[in-house]
């Protein structure tokens, strides 16, 4: 019998009962979460089980949700069963104050650098990792740049006006600012005036 998302879900519930939750079928891929202390148990079960055989780690990354107190950081594993050709997504959530998650390097050698990258950008502390140090950023960096508290300028913000494009905010020649702040044409010679 071909492996289906529903069957994987049943197997996981059989094994872990209420510990696994948040089952979702997103665009054909099964997605679920488990407590962070159980991450290795779940990965090991998925790896060893004679039916499930999720033995290929496709991807490991983190997502930061600052609005969820106590579970700000999600570590996302993408696993692939190459025999039955089925993928799944597994998440563990951790607080940003104590971002300790067990490392998967013992199970997947591929996790080594992916965990280092996740640590580098999100500060997830992978407990037991053989060489947890920064990989893409400089070693001296003191913060975790992919977290949401370091925003880039939002180019799609809804309140934007022409000031964003270098127009309207500064006074050009032959213009004048009204008391409402809008810029109108005027005869006033404003050469040398301070550019706002």
């Amino acid at each position, binding site marked *: 019998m071909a492996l289906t998302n529903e069957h994987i879900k049943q197997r996981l519930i059989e094994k872990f009962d209420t510990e696994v939750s948040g089952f979702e079928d*997103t*665009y054909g*891929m099964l*997605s679920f979460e488990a407590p962070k202390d159980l991450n290795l148990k779940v990965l090991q079960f998925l790896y060893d089980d004679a039916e499930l055989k999720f*033995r*290929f*780690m*496709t*991807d490991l*990354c983190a*997502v*930061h949700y600052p609005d969820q107190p106590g579970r700000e950081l999600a570590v*996302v594993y*993408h696993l692939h069963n*190459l025999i039955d*050709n089925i*993928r799944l*997504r597994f998440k563990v959530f951790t607080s940003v104050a104590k971002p300790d998650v067990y490392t998967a390097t013992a199970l*997947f*050698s*591929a996790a*080594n*650098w*992916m965990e280092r*990258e996740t640590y580098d*950008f999100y500060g997830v502390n992978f407990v037991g990792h053989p060489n947890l140090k*920064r*990989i*893409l*950023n*400089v070693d001296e960096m003191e913060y975790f*740049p*992919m977290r949401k508290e*370091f*925003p*880039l*300028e*939002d*180019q*799609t913000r809804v309140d934007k006006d022409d000031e964003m494009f270098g127009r309207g905010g500064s006074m050009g020649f032959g213009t004048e600012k009204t008391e409402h702040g809008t810029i109108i044409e005027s005869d006033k010679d404003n050469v040398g005036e301070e550019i706002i």
Partner: protein
Amino acid sequence: MSEQHIKLPEGSIEKTTTTLNLGPTHPATHGVMQNILELDGERIVSTEQTIGYIHRAFEKIAERRNLYQITPLTDRLNYCSSPINNMGWHLTCEKLLGVKTPKRVDYLRVIIMELARISDHLICNSIVGVDSGAFTGFLYVMQYRELIYEIYEEICGSRLTTNIGRIGGFERNFNDIAFTKIQKFLDEYPRVLTEFENLFNRNRIFMERTIGAGAISAERALNYGFTGPNLRAAGVDYDVRIHSPYSSYEDFQFDIPVGTTGDCYDRFLVRNQEMWQSMNIIKQAMQKLQDFKGAEADVYHADVPEYYLPEKKDVYTKMEALIWHFKIIMGEINMPAGEVYNAVEGGNGELGFYFVSDGGRTPYRLHFRRPCFIYYQAFEELTKGAMLSDAIIVMSSLNLIAGEMDA
């Protein structure tokens, strides 16, 4: 005198091994990456890789970009086959947005992706030749990469970082010159590739340099997350084009070449065979394009005005097109919330996009699964106990592209 002036680090006299910095800017690294090799004579005892020299924070930048502005970022991942990255990105967006593309668009995409695969493998294999001392093959095939770049130029106007296509299709139909050039490529390249293979495949020096160098077993390769030609050289027939077909790859007949030992020689042969298969796919796609008649033969994009950037001449003459143009360019299109993982078979392996949308106008999180990054970590295992010259050839035969590694 020397005792006074030269201060050696402590223990360096007693040390029996030599530390050698290979890179970051070494001609043999073909990109900016550093290997710190610990050598005992000419044997490698251990290696440590340092990467990140061209890290450009694409994932962070992408969190504040509209979808169409992320396409040029994907160009710069594996810049030897940027059309595949572009298409992978468009396919990911289409999966999230629920856009269905017409068959003709799929076939055009297949053509351009397979051309990109050929140009990627062609560079990699000829560089393996250069690093083992054979320069001729490199120069010989280079003019056909040029021809591929000319085809890109006809289709999208640029060569290396292509920014090709849009969500829903292409910006314009392929013109006749493009088709003529593709046909020219199909006619001439087999002869060139045969000659290239004649140069290397049974070349005694090349075989002795590459057989057994950087070998990896199938189990270790899978454990290390290898995909693409490097995994197939180890004997696992995993190919995203077959396992989760995208862009109508299920309509094509082609083989997946596999190796047995996973060494540099097998990787070389697998890539060569893949070029033959790619040509076979392009031929089939050209054949299939002939079957479209009438209005269908001019379709080059899906009918999705809310995501597909309209043609410029329509923007100037049609109200509807002007509105959509404005909304798309200003990024005023809200995306459906959801999480999607989509992968394509890149030049190097499975290129994945993990896209988290919170229903806003930009990705909430975008993660690139970059095959190079994942298999460079196996470098130490591949070269332990090997000679220094093997390290060079393993590096080029893994096809490490710094742009993809560092994102």
